């Protein structure tokens, strides 16, 4: 297959989207955004109440791609070595042998990530940012396609530790799935009378397809003016009242890349303000750290970012 053909890559996206939406009903828009982060090479954090389909969605994505898949259930007693791996002394060879942990995979589902202690959560930092792990002084490279999809419960819940800011910044987007409409919930019940639709999900892409999709996304053009618009948006988060720490330049990069992916999905060769605005809340909101006053005053990060989107004039 030809790498340079965007139609082929777009077909891969359509197959993935169709497959996942067949399992998770009523989440078409969120699936599109998750795939945007996936195609842009970013990681995804799903955040909502228990039972809203976070894990199902993550598993559906993992199953749709024929790739090495591991799942880590984060618990309060989980240790960093449980994720990264551990060196064990081999008495026969009288040497330490490294046993790779679950992080050495292609798609990693970190379920309920905020139930582990910050120490354990932080074990993923290097892996997510740089695609490599340093254990016992050795640098070990992760597979080319390394994608983390994590789920967490809202922080106010019992037995949760909030993610460190640095860890939050590593996720390209954070999504709240929310409850689906009654119609969709009814059809969901109908599909689950005998067995779970996840069982019928057939893989529709291989690792090479995903890498091809990522390359095609990188070809989407971003004009000088759009880059400026993105920077204006991200810059505004640093100046807004009630925000202690705004979004980082990493956020600008993530916003540009995910916008490129959305533009690609829309069969556009260039990013338009619509793409940026569509994904801005998902990319920016979780990175903001509010003033304690604003936090306790009930300020919502998403509402803040939406306010910024209304402040900055859009290029037309």
């Amino acid at each position, binding site marked *: 297959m030809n790498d340079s053909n965007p139609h082929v890559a777009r077909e891969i996206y359509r197959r993935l989207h169709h497959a996942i939406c067949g399992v998770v009903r009523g989440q078409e828009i969120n699936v599109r955004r998750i795939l945007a982060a996936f195609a842009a090479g970013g990681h995804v954090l799903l955040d909502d109440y228990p039972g809203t389909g976070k894990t199902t969605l993550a598993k559906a994505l993992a199953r749709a791609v024929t790739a090495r898949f591991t799942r880590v259930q984060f618990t309060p007693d989980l240790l960093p070595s449980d994720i990264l791996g551990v060196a064990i002394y081999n008495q026969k060879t009288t040497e330490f042998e490294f046993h790779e942990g679950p992080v050495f995979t292609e798609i990693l589902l970190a379920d309920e990530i905020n139930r582990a202690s910050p120490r354990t959560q932080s074990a993923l930092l290097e892996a997510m940012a740089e695609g490599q792990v340093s254990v016992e002084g050795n640098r070990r490279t992760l597979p080319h396609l390394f994608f983390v999809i994590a789920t967490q419960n809202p922080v106010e819940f019992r037995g949760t530790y909030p993610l460190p800011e640095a860890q939050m910044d590593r996720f390209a987007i954070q999504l709240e799935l929310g409850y689906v409409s009654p119609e969709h919930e009814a059809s969901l019940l109908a599909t689950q009378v005998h067995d779970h639709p996840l069982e019928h999900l057939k893989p529709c892409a291989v690792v090479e397809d995903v890498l091809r999709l990522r390359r095609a996304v990188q070809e989407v*053009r*971003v*004009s*000088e*003016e*759009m*880059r*400026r618009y993105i*920077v204006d948006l991200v810059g505004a988060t640093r100046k807004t009242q009630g925000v202690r720490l705004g979004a980082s330049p990493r956020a600008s990069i993530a916003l540009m890349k995910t916008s490129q992916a959305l533009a690609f999905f829309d069969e*556009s*060769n*260039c*990013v*338009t*303000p*619509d793409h940026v*605005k569509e994904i801005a809340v998902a990319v920016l909101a979780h990175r903001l750290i509010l003033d304690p006053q604003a936090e306790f005053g009930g300020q919502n990060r998403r509402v803040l970012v939406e306010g910024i*989107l*209304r*402040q*900055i*004039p*859009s*290029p*037309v």
Partner: protein
Amino acid sequence: MNPIASHWTRFAAPWALPALVLWGWQADFWGWGLLMGLLIEARRLSSFRLDISPSDFNRFWNFNAILFVGVGLYLFIAREGPSHVSALVAGETPSGRLAGVKEISATALSFLRWLPFIFYPMVLAHAWSQTPRLPWSTFSLYQQNRARNHPLAPVPDWANRQVHPTYPYIAIVLLASTASTNHPGIYLSLLSAVVAALLWPTSNTRFQVLTRLGCLGGVLALVLAANQGLGHVRELMQELENRLLQGGGDQGFDQIRTFTALGNVGRLKQSGSIVLRIASTNSTAPGLLREATFNRFRAQAWSTSHREFSQIESASFGSRLWRRDSETQPTQALTISRHTANGSAPLALPDNTVAVSEIATVQIETNSLGSARLKEALPIAIYTAELGPNHLSTPAQPSEAEDLQLDGLSDADSEAIQQVALQLGLNRGTPHREAIATVEKHFASGFAYSLWQEPNRKSKAPSPLAEFLLNTRAGHCEFYATTTVLLLRTAGIPTRYAVGYSPGDRISGGWIARGRDAHAWCRALVDGRWIDVDTTPGIWREQEARRRNFLEPLRDGFSHARYRFATWRQSSNQWRLLTITAGVIGLGWLAWRQLRGSQWRGMRGTNAKPARSSSIPGLDSEFYAVVLMLERIQGKRLPHETLLEWLRRVVPHSHPYRTNIFEALQLHQRLRFDPMGLPIPDRSRLAKIADTLA
């Protein structure tokens, strides 16, 4: 960061006063230098500071740059810069070119002297501001523009480096002080002292003070020694230059002595450039125009027996400058124009000239042989020669003993002349007219015209004249003229050697004489009148014209244009005033704009929203007309709304043109946001839809 660059920013403001005073002393701006220095240094006594923003500094700099250009232009124009440049580029003679170079460098020097004034406003403003240092980008118009148009573009390293403007200013002041050197010895030591004092804070404090002072002293001694050496080198160069210039001396302008090309081997190079322009109502050629006459031949050079030129008292001739013959009434006139060098030019005149008049007041000088020249003329001298009948009856200047002299010849020349004279039967007793006819007849048969002289191949004839007379029998006009003069002298006829022009090319309304129309001939005193005896074969003109360059018409075109411009400039006295006024108005307008802080306002599409910068593509999109129309009907778009969001809001699903609108929007967005732009067919599709919709 570059350690040297940081060096210049580490130290506090230096003292500008000594440098300015030194400059004031040298450039005769004593009071100004002192005042300017004191104004800058006064800030050390006061805590008052102005608050000047970086953009104001940009404006100050732009103002200074305009001032720089303005003063430069003013000096260039006021000091006749264009004509000097043209003299340098297209000068005919080495001395003309040299004069051009000298004038241009004099202009540059006076510009240099003024530099401290030009950059003073910027430095004064900085000295009294709170800003300690300025980034280099302040001084770059390009960087300023870039920063305005592309705020995100990376700024090069050098532009971010900081500089204390007083340092470069002091360098400029010191440079300007070198433009004029009064008392060079004292000046050099003072200059060195100022530079040493300025550089002292930057000296390496790891060494002892004495060591540093010693080093400084050593360098100063070296500088003084080098200065002495330079003086000697300059003298040497001057000498060399003089020698070179004399060697290549210009024949046309020296009426006292002319070097002939006799004895030069190879081809005689003659230029096709236009020397004289002759306006004449008569259709016959003007004939021979004489520039100079000589009577002494020595060592292949003709010279005059009397070197003195005497000024002609024009006042006695009424409206004319010079009346050569007060009895004869002029019957026709030739108006001749030519370029002058330093206001001087030989008068090329026909033999039958009775009077000369000129447009502007000038002097005419003449010598005993009748050569005349203009003095204190304009760059282009235009004079009218009033001509009498072809044969003037009045007696001309008497002959001199020198006109019969054959003593100065080398032995070989003398032998050859005597041999030919013997062969032709010329002796003191031959009647004059018969002798002339004999010589003319001799040269008319068996002699050829040639600009080419064979290198001497073991020839028997030991001199060029003998070679010409006895062997090759081919040469150019100088050979013919010189040998005719000498042969006629053997027959006892007083003769002289004349040089000038024989105009050959017609132009509308007159004639032109080119460099290659230069000619030499013999003048003989027969029956109390000087007549022209031209023995050069008549074919010489065709021979010369054959070597016409194919670019000559083009060159003539340029020459005519330059001539017209020069005469126009010369005739209208207002032009300089006009140019300067226009320049002042233009520069004043620019400066006012800069100080007022307004930017260039380009023309924008009528419907575009105000753009952040001119580099945004697609602001000329036809879709904006559709947006305007929809806004009138459906209400305004909110500033944060994208076009897609707004159109989805305001265009109902039932809208008849909904699909067209969204297709046009898609094309518009590609035009606006795709850096590769919109292909032309798509662009015309967009224009078409927008046209239909609007």
